[in-house]
């Protein structure tokens, strides 16, 4: 694992530009946020396939729909809170119902947005998007998984939601890692003591937790669940059978996110104790990203402590 920290939004912009070079049907629609979402390079290179609708998230999704109805493959992006929150009706009734090849990229997911506070810290997006039929929900954990998932959502030709974080994250994957696609998951550490499922920027915390646990003689299996919908079902269930207990970690509300998705899968197939490291049903607030992650308990130490609780209840 390399130590370099990079930005997922930059990865999105680079993947988008690369796709646009190959595919003259690839369009990008923006709601006055290309500089924040990392897609400014597309705007420079392909102005004829770029459209900024202004501060109008509903129009963003409507225009993306119209383009997709002509056969284009469309990326639409803005801050997650406003994309998913304000344009939910359009996402549901236009994009998902018609199964259109539209990739919605929500930047600024989670509380690690920092000082902007609760309005800009989207912690219900995974829940809202994974409840929609036909929608792939993808939460990359680093620069390269972002690049791979942007590309695979384009190849998929169906509705996708990709959640990006604002902060820089250390590299986990490389350019040559394959199979980072909807429906897959990646085993980052193998073990028989506990299954730790994580997505987004919490994956690096899960890996840290695993190394702490290793020193305490608990071999943790860490699964990067970047595909929240569809879940990597076989990977998760095989791991649950091996370890007998599970902790799910996400920078999201406890309601309806990865935690409930994994718990639902496990309890109907191979019931084992599942613990959650996530926000409660609550809003974030202003602060530095580090302060907020500590305050809301989204840390490796919190994962370790949840693992201890799950481990004592594990199914043998």
């Amino acid at each position, binding site marked *: 694992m390399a130590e370099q920290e990079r930005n997922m939004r930059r990865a999105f912009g680079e993947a988008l530009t690369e796709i646009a070079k190959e595919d003259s049907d690839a369009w990008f*629609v923006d709601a006055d946020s290309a500089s924040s979402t990392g897609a400014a390079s597309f705007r420079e290179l392909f102005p004829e396939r770029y459209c900024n609708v*202004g501060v109008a998230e509903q*129009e963003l999704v*409507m225009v993306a*729909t*119209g383009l997709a109805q002509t056969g284009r493959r469309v990326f639409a992006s803005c801050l997650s809170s406003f994309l998913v929150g304000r344009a939910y009706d359009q996402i549901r009734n*236009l994009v998902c119902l018609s199964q259109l090849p539209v990739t919605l990229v929500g930047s600024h997911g989670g509380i690690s947005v920092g000082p902007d506070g609760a309005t800009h810290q989207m912690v219900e997006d995974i829940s809202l998007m994974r409840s929609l039929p036909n929608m792939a929900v993808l939460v990359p954990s680093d620069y390269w998984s972002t690049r791979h998932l942007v590309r695979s959502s384009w190849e998929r030709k169906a509705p996708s939601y990709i959640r990006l974080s604002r902060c820089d994250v250390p590299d986990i994957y490389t350019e040559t890692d394959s199979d980072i696609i909807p429906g897959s998951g990646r085993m980052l550490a193998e073990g028989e003591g506990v299954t730790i499922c994580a997505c987004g920027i919490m994956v690096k915390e899960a890996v840290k937790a695993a190394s702490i646990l290793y020193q305490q003689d608990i071999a943790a299996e860490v699964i990067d669940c970047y595909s929240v919908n569809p879940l990597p079902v076989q990977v998760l269930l095989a791991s649950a059978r091996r370890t007998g207990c599970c902790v799910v970690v996400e920078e999201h509300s406890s309601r309806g996110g990865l935690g409930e998705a994994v718990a639902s899968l496990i309890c109907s197939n191979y019931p084992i104790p599942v613990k959650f490291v996530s926000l409660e049903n609550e809003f974030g607030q202003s602060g530095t990203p580090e302060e907020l992650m500590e305050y809301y308990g989204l840390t490796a130490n919190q994962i370790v402590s949840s693992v201890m609780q799950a481990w004592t209840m594990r199914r043998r």
Partner: protein
Amino acid sequence: MNIINEEELRIKANNVRKDVVRMVGIARSGHLVSSLSIVDILSVLYWKVMKVSPQEPRMDSRDRFILSKGHGCPALYAVLAQRGFFSREELWNYRRLGAMLQGHPETPRTPGIDAPSGSLGMGLGVGNGMALYLKREQLPSRVFCLVGDGEVQEGSVWESAMTSSHFGLDNVVLIIDRNMRQSEGITSEIREVEPLEDKFRSFGWETTSVDGHDLKALTDVLDMLHGGRPLAVVARTVPGKGVSFMEKESEKELPHLSRSVIDKALRELNAREEKDGDA
């Protein structure tokens, strides 16, 4: 397509009205009054104005139509069936489980439907996306979008209105079905939408108004060239047009759609055509 004369078009429109009444009568559900107010507009579009191909409904070079007031779809379905996009038999399954013709338009389920609708205020924005692509590719196809007058109370319509003019989408024609009614009653009493033309002009649009049941005037207006700007057409219509006892009613004021009410409506529509030998 354009060789149909006005009298033939009038007969087509009356046949569409009859099918609309039959559909809603059989389904015992659906928005009859607001479907009848747009029959003449749709007939002019599909028989006189728009370039479409029933044999190849997704043809790239077609004109597009978006029924933003999706609840008026009985009128659109009946026109598409009469125009040959699908069998007329499908009309009798409207709103039934598994039907091709859902309660509100869906893609890709129904041939001839260019965009889904049902949640109000979304058609123009979708039309903008289509028109933007067509314009950038310098394709001559136009995009027609029909909204209800109550529908412009949706804020999203005005987001879209700004987009159309900003990008100079003169391949967009927005038709406002000005039947003065919305779900709960009279539009001006619930939330005034006038002055509609002034509003669109101030948003950078060309505007005009027309009698929404005058086939000749509608044809002239909808075929009008309007270089540089999108065009908004306020079509003055009568809710329930064609069935005397439904005219000027809102959906809530309609009598219960019993078999006898449907038969009475069909008798009246048949009587209009008897002199043309179409019953």
